[in-house]
């Protein structure tokens, strides 16, 4: 396990590389989800009020 984490002495480079990739990809996914959910909520609110944003 320690050998795995040490990555042959290159841990300082390998793990940050994978972390950056993971964080950015997860960020893309998360921001997409958040934006879509917001629109879905706003659309639902609009359609429930018979076309008005506020009652």
């Amino acid at each position, binding site marked *: 396990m320690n050998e795995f984490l040490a990555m042959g002495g290159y841990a300082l*480079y390998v793990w940050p*590389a994978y972390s950056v*990739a993971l964080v950015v990809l997860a960020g893309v*996914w998360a921001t*997409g989800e958040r*934006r*879509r959910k917001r*629109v879905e909520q706003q*659309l639902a609110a609009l359609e429930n009020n018979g076309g008005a944003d506020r009652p």
Partner: protein
Amino acid sequence: MHRFANPGRFQRLAARLLPWLKGLTALAFLIGLYLALWDSPPDYQQGATVRIMYVHVPSAWMALFAYLLLGLASASALIWRHPLADVAAEALSPVGAALTSVALATGALWGKPMWGTFWVWDARLTSFLLLFFLYLGHMALLGAFDDRQRGQRSAAVLALVGLVNLPVIKFSVDWWNTLHQPASITRLDGPSIDPSMLWPLFVMAAAFHLFLAVAVLERMRTLLLEARLRAQRQAGFDRLQMADQGAGRGR
């Protein structure tokens, strides 16, 4: 192409496809990461840093592929006015920018131990940085105008002009004296990489392809919903305005 031009049809198709694509993406990453980090050998020269290749190369490939798609979408919008083309373009650039940034960062982290430097202004790295700026420029142009269509049109023109950067990136390692190594996979003689490393690379490449598809399709869905929201709000305003005028309050 024209069968999917109908936004409603696209939404229904996307809603059916996306759960499967998301599942496949997760699976591909699990297998790919297992192969990349555990089951594949270290390189006899590069040691464990070769494992960075399994995120650096797929992200770079996808950054380029996404730009190609952006160019196609832009051409489709400008020339044929395909209704989903602008939506696709707007969905593609942020995802493309993210993939480019991953390629740049992982490349720098690979370069430091192997080349002794995080960065060098050689042809490959510089043209790839330009790709990143093209994505950012595209995103900026889309939001730069009050009139959405003007933004979409200028962004599409930028995307098309930037297409010339793609062959430059691809052939930069042949045309110029670069620190970045020449092609070891997409060559006429076939890949020069050992199968024990080629398979993890291909699985990770598949995972990144799937990620691109999921991220872009989701964003397209959202953009279409936002368009519907705008249309409904506009219809609501119009109704209010007509009601006001009918009651004699407007002139």
